[in-house]
Structures are given as structure tokens and as C-alpha cells.
């Protein structure tokens, strides 16, 4: 430790802790915090997946006892006396599957884990702007997850009003009997939201203030640009969710009626609350947050895909500036499209028209990005490694998810397909097909840097192929189900005559979903095995150009021995400067041919 005075924030870092507690539990190191997020989020992914498997069972085999688990857990959790899933249990499953996946898996993974790990490395800094706040963000997320998880074990179970928690169902029904489960879930969401706001704030200050010399905005990796825009949404949209949740909690616990209209009856009795509220109010405030939330769910994964596609095409991303402008447009437009979730809510039809227009507009920047990804691949020297396979699938499935989105944007169409399986198909294509595949890409790509080992390539390719196959088999038919009018959040479709012909599809989807779930065991095994026993990785196995690949494995606590001086953009592949090789790191000397004793292309410092 030097005793010279520290003159710049960029030189400051917390030294390597000596004891286990400060090294792995309460750590200020963004790399450790990132891994904490990663392990926790992957665990919740298993939970969310299990919930989905249970709910798929009920859809395919209505009221049939769930094999093995059903009889074992009868009368507990979601199960009835015979081990089948009860109607309320089904709603609980659907609700919690959504909440767990959105708040405790995807956002913590793509922002908390990868954002945390990569941002300082990509901009050339030693850590984030506020390391203490960073640690706090994780230690708000974990208790939030535990609170949410504990709701399964209380009387009357967890939340069961859909992840969107529309009142009066989420409200008055709970106000007359104190359903502790939903209150616990709301408390968990509140904490998770706070964690998200603080995290986003941290990343914004880091990216604005702590970039290494020469790391101009136009040289940032697209991963970082995406995290930057995402962080804006996190800081400014999430508080609306907190406020809505607080009002809902007040309604449930203090007996207020922000969302309960006068004269509402629950069953045959008048609701206990005083009335005077509006259910529509919840929808506006909730979706004002929840629409930007879906951009939080997709933008970071777009960032990963862009940088990964460039690295494995040995070409810069096509149209870097257009990509940045698209991200910025999504940031601006993302705040004015929320009403497209409310086309059938009875809101002002003129507003409905305005939201339709803005929603159709926001498709444009996404479309630009898709064409630019294709343009990146076009004419590239393609290396079909696992990260690339996942990234290419990301693009194709984002296209499918985006196309279904266009239909939903048109309110006349949406009035018909709202609350059907069409919507479910859409968001699973973008959140699973696109984002989760991008997570797999990012994991296999950055695993060597994070853990100093390689994941098994053959196992990754097998996982990729089977996941791609079963994912499409499971979710593509849902478009047809939706068009046929199959409603969502429906525990038993057998009560509706017009849905009976669709029952074989439900079974087919369920079987594909089970296969999809089983396939993920391959990834789990690969990940866990490789952390401990994987083949040792070289510093830069992918010959990639961004700054994280210029430092050795394992990454030291201070990241860079000397802070890099950045001289070139993030995708310095196959340009004349790179000869005789095909790439250069971002901090390579400006004119390698002229620099005295220039290091050969690709040497790390």
C-alpha cells in the first residue's frame, strides 16, 4: 500500500480484504458483488422454472395430481387434497413465476451481475463510483428475495393476483382478509426496487465520471451504452412502482381506498374500504414503471449481443452511431408508450390512439438494431463458438418477439389478443428467447474472465441446440392459441367449449416445456463444474478487443495495474491497423507501425 497522498478518485480502490467475511460476504469489490448477484439470480431462475413447470402441468392435465410432488405436498402450497393444483394455487404459480423471473432473475442477472462486473472493466476504472452503495444494493436484493420467497409458506400462500397486481383483486379481496403473502411480496418488491434505484444511480455516475483517459462516449462498448440507458430507466421509473406498491399496501393494511371505487362489492358484501378510488389509477402508475421495466429487461442483453457478434464476426458492429442513437431513442420513447398495456382498460380512447402511435414509433429503433446486427454478421469471418451461437439465436428470436409486438401495438388488434396466449408468446420470445439467450451468450463469453476457466464447449453447444429447439416448440404454438382466443391465467380450459380443440396443443407445449426445463440441467452442470474444474483459460481466449481482455486472469482487485489510455473504438477488428493480425485492444498505441518497439498485435500489458 502506497502512503503517497491519493490525488484522483480514479486511483482509489479498496485493498484486497484478508478475511473470508470481507472477501466474499460484505465486499466492496464490484467483481465479487457481481458474482453474488449471479449465484443468487441463477438460484431464483431454478425456482422460477419449477413454478412454470407446475403451471404447465395444470394447463395440460387439468386437475390431474402432479406426479410424485403432488401426493407428497397435498394440501400444502398450491396443491389440493389429491395433489392436483387448486385454482387459486394456479394463480399463485402464474403470479410468482412472473414476479420471480422479472425482479429476482433477469434484472439482477443482466444489470446486477453482468453490469456490475463489466462496467468498470469496460470503461477502464478500478471500481464503480460508490462501492459501499454497490454492496448495499446486493444486500437489499437478497433479503428482498427471501421476503418474496417466504410468502409461499404463510397461510393462504403467496400473491395470486398476477404479477401486474391489478386492483380490486389485489386489493379489496386482500383488504377483507389479511393475506400476508401478498403483503410480504409487496415488501420484497419495495426492497428490490430500492436496490435497483441505488444500483442504477451508481452505474450512471460511474459511466459519466470514471471513464479512463481516451475513453470517449464514441469508444464505449455497446454493452456499456446499453447499461447506461438501462440505468436511466432504473433510477427514474422504479420509484413509480414503489409509490404504487405503497398505495396498494396502504389499501390492504390501513384500509384506505386509493384503488377501490365507492360501492364495490366483494362476493355479496360491500368492500370494507371507504371508496372514492379508481382501479385505473393503479394501471397508469404501475405501467408507467413496468413499461420502462421491459426495456430494462432487454437493453443490456442487446448490448451483450452487439459486442459478442462483433467479436465473433471479426468486424466492428455495423452502424455504431445508429446503435447509440437507437438506444437513446428507446430511452426517450420508452417513457411515453405505457398505455399500450391498457388498450382495453377503458381509458380515454384518444390517449389510446396516442399510445398506439408512440408504440409503433418505438419499433423503429429496435428495427434499426436488428438490421445492424445482421449487417455485422454479413461478410464477417464468423467463428461459431458458443457465445456466438447464443447471440445469433438472440437476434432471430428477438425478431420473432418484435414482430408479434407490432401486432399488439395496433390497438384494434390488441383488443382481440389482449390477455391471450399471444401476449405470453410475445414476451417469452423477448425475455427468454432474446434476453435469456443473451445471458447464456454473456455467461459463456465472460466466464473465462470471471472464473479463469473455460466452460465446456461441446456441452454448451448441446445446451444451445436443445434449448433453441424446445424453446421454439414450446412457445411458437402459443401465437396460434392466442389468435384462437385462448385466455391467459386460465387454470382450466376445459370449462370453455371453444377451447377444447386446443387441448392437444396445450399438452404439446407442456411436454416441450418439460424438455426445455430438463435441458437447463446441462447448463447448470456445465456452469458449476467449470467454475471448479474447467480447463484453465488464457487471458483473452476470444481475441476480443475490449479492455477487460487486456488484464490477466484472475482479475486483481484493482483491475488495471496502470489505468489504460484508450486510443481506439471497442471493435477494432479487421482494420488495416490490425495487420498482421485481425484485432487490436482498445488501448493499443495509436499508430502501431510507428511506435518504437511496438508490441505485436494482441499482446497484453
Amino acid at each position: 500500500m502506497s502512503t503517497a497522498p491519493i490525488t484522483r478518485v480514479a486511483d482509489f480502490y479498496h485493498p484486497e480484504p484478508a478475511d473470508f467475511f470481507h472477501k466474499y460476504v460484505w465486499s466492496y469489490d464490484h467483481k465479487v458483488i457481481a458474482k453474488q448477484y449471479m449465484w443468487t439470480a441463477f438460484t431464483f431462475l431454478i425456482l422460477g422454472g419449477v413454478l412454470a413447470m407446475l403451471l404447465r402441468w395444470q394447463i395440460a392435465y387439468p386437475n390431474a395430481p402432479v406426479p410424485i410432488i403432488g401426493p407428497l405436498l397435498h394440501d400444502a402450497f398450491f396443491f389440493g387434497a389429491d395433489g392436483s393444483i387448486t385454482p387459486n394455487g394456479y394463480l399463485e404459480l402464474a403470479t410468482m413465476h412472473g414476479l420471480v423471473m422479472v425482479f429476482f432473475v433477469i434484472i439482477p442477472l443482466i444489470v446486477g451481475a453482468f453490469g456490475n462486473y463489466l462496467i468498470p472493466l469496460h470503461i477502464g476504472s478500478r471500481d464503480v463510483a460508490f462501492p459501499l452503495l454497490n454492496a448495499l444494493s446486493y444486500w437489499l436484493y437478497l433479503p428482498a428475495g427471501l421476503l418474496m420467497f417466504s410468502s409461499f409458506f404463510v397461510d393462504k400462500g403467496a400473491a395470486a393476483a398476477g404479477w401486474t397486481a391489478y386492483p380490486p383483486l389485489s386489493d379489496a379481496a386482500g383488504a377483507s382478509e389479511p393475506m400476508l403473502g401478498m403483503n410480504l411480496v409487496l415488501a420484497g418488491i419495495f426492497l428490490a426496487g430500492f436496490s435497483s434505484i441505488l444500483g442504477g444511480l451508481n452505474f450512471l455516475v460511474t459511466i459519466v465520471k470514471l471513464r479512463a483517459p481516451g475513453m470517449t462516449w464514441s469508444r464505449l462498448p455497446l454493452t456499456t451504452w446499453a447499461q447506461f440507458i438501462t440505468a436511466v430507466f432504473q433510477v427514474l421509473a422504479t420509484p413509480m412502482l414503489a409509490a404504487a406498491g405503497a398505495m396498494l399496501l396502504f389499501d390492504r393494511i390501513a384500509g384506505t381506498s386509493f384503488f377501490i371505487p365507492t360501492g364495490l362489492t366483494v362476493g355479496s358484501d360491500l368492500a370494507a374500504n371507504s371508496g372514492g378510488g379508481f382501479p385505473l389509477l393503479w394501471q397508469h402508475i404501475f405501467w408507467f414503471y413496468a413499461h420502462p421495466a421491459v426495456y430494462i429487461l432487454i437493453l443490456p442483453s442487446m448490448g451483450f449481443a452487439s459486442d459478442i457478434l462483433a467479436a465473433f464476426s471479426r468486424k466492428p458492429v455495423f452502424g455504431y452511431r445508429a446503435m447509440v442513437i437507437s438506444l437513446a431513442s428507446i430511452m426517450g420513447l420508452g417513457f411515453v408508450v405505457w398505455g399500450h398495456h391498457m388498450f382495453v382498460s377503458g381509458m380515454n380512447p384518444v390517449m389510446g390512439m396516442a399510445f398506439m402511435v408512440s408504440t409503433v414509433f418505438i419499433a423503429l429503433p429496435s428495427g434499426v438494431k436488428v438490421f445492424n446486427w445482421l449487417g455485422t454478421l454479413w461478410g464477417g469471418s464468423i467463428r461459431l463458438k458458443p457465445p456466438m451461437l447464443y447471440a445469433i439465436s438472440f437476434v432471430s428470436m428477438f425478431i420473432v418477439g418484435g414482430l408479434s409486438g407490432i401486432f399488439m401495438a395496433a390497438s384494434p388488434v390488441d383488443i382481440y389478443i389482449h390477455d391471450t396466449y399471444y401476449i405470453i408468446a410475445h414476451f417469452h420470445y423477448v425475455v427468454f428467447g432474446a434476453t435469456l439467450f443473451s445471458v447464456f451468450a454473456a455467461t459463456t463469453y465472460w466466464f473465462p474472465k470471471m472464473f479463469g476457466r473455460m466452460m465446456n464447449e461441446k456441452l454448451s453447444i448441446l445446451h444451445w441446440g436443445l434449448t433453441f429447439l424446445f424453446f421454439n416448440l414450446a412457445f411458437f404454438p402459443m401465437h396460434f392459441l392466442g389468435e384462437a382466443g385462448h385466455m391467459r391465467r386460465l387454470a382450466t380450459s376445459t370449462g370453455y367449449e371453444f377451447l377444447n380443440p386446443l387441448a392437444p396443443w396445450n399438452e404439446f407445449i407442456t411436454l416441450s416445456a418439460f424438455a426445455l426445463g430438463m435441458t437447463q440441467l446441462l447448463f447448470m452442470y456445465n456452469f458449476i463444474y467449470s467454475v471448479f474444474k474447467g480447463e484453465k483459460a488464457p487471458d483473452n481466449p476470444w481475441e476480443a478487443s475490449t479492455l477487460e481482455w487486456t488484464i490477466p486472469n484472475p482479475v486483481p482487485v484493482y483491475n488495471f495495474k496502470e489505468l489504460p489510455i484508450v486510443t481506439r473504438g471497442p471493435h477494432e477488428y479487421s482494420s488495416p491497423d490490425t495487420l498482421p493480425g485481425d484485432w487490436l485492444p482498445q488501448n493499443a498505441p495509436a499508430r502501431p507501425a510507428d511506435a518504437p518497439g511496438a508490441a505485436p498485435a494482441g499482446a497484453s500489458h
Partner: protein
Amino acid sequence: MSTSTASHSLKPYFLVFSALLGLTVLTVALSYVDVGRALGLSGSGRAANIVAGLVVALIKASLVVWIFMHQDHEEGINRFILGFSVALLTLAFLALSADFLWLGTYVKAAAGALVAGR
């Protein structure tokens, strides 16, 4: 960029304080008056009072933000953050109002219909 210069005079703080006190007296006083009638806009109900109260509050807020919170010396990014947040606030208010003023006409019409005994 940084406002950590030690040579700031304290006078602006006292001036703003006095202004804020005065404006508070003003806004309370206005609440006892029918501003609409005083301005010759009778029939506007509470609207004029609401606008007047809002204007005074905005003036007070601007003084606090500009002088007490040193926005007069702050760097661009911090001004942008505040501006963007206020823009989003405005957007949210406008959208909510657009929906609820419209909804309100239906709610009131329905209530009127009920009262009329239909």
C-alpha cells in the same frame, strides 16, 4: 464545476429566506380570497385559486433549487438530471389528467343520471 469555493457571501441565503417567508404569507392570504372573482373571472370556481397557489409554490421552489441547492453553480449534467425528472413529472401529470378529466365527465354524468332517478 465544483461549488466548494469558500468565498461565497451568505447574503443570498437570507434574502431567499425572507422571500420564502413573504411568499408563504402571500399564499396563505390568497387562500382566503376568491382569486377568480378578484380578477373578474367569476364562475371559474377554484381554478384561479389553484393556479395562483401553484404559481407561488413554483416560485418558492425555484428559489430553493437555484440558491439553496446551488443549481446556479452546478454543472450541466446535474441540471439535466433535475430537468429530465421534472419533465417526466409533467408528462405523468398530463397523462393522468388527460385520462381522469375525461373519465370524470363520465363519472359525473353517471352520478347525475343516478341522482335524477333514472
